[in-house]
């Protein structure tokens, strides 16, 4: 009986993770697509120096960051998947979401400065889980994107 209750509880969490987590992810992706379309006129480069011959008024450091966590279902599915190895698709979408969100926020910061270009863009990702060896810790990661916003003279 107790075992059944525990199994039921896990199944309930899986269902919540799968339904709410899945819906959140789909909503996030469609919101991202819309915001990316709005910010398309801000050009982003990872070149280290702006081209010669264009005069710029000012340069400011801009950045965007976001912390994204996995849901219960992803964690469970990834656990199963890593037993056999191979591509962890549930984590790929998580990383994709995080990085795109960071870029969008960086572009929004650039727009607030009145800039149309961001140069020398760098990415950084760091895991915020308690410990690498801690199985109880849930995986979450911080994504940052930063660069120098330039306003043309």
């Amino acid at each position, binding site marked *: 009986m107790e075992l059944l209750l525990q199994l039921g509880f896990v199944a309930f969490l899986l269902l919540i993770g799968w339904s709410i987590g899945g819906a959140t*992810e789909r909503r*996030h992706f469609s919101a991202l697509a819309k915001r990316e379309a709005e910010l398309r006129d801000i050009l982003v480069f990872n070149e280290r*120096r702006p081209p010669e011959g264009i005069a710029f008024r000012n340069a400011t450091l801009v950045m965007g960051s976001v912390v994204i966590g996995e849901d219960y279902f992803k964690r469970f599915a990834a656990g199963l998947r890593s037993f056999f190895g191979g591509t962890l698709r549930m984590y790929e979408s998580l990383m994709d979401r995080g990085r795109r969100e960071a870029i969008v926020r960086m572009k929004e910061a650039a727009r607030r400065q009145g800039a149309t270009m961001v140069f020398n863009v760098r990415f950084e990702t760091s895991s915020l889980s308690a410990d690498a060896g801690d199985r109880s810790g849930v995986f979450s990661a911080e994504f940052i994107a930063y660069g120098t916003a330039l306003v043309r003279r």
Partner: protein
Amino acid sequence: MELTNLETVPGKTIVRHLGLVQGSTVRSKHAGRDLMAGLKNFVGGELKAYTDLLNESRAEAINRMVAQARAVGGNAVVNVRFSTSNIAAGAAEVMAYGTAVEVR
């Protein structure tokens, strides 16, 4: 104080090179934030409390770096880089570093 992660400040000339400056801070998530994030962990998505926490830390790290740059007589920091590391359970170090210069 101008901050940039380019090697130069566009439209200005570097007249003096003042060396590496850095600022860092270590913050931990407070219990209330951790609890909410713990609940959020079942459904996934953005953990807003942590995003804000790390942004505050990064602003503090930048402030400390700028203070150092000012102390050595700089008016700009070029080649700024950030790094974050997870040093203990629930605590993260956020660091900003760059080269202090004088521009004209």
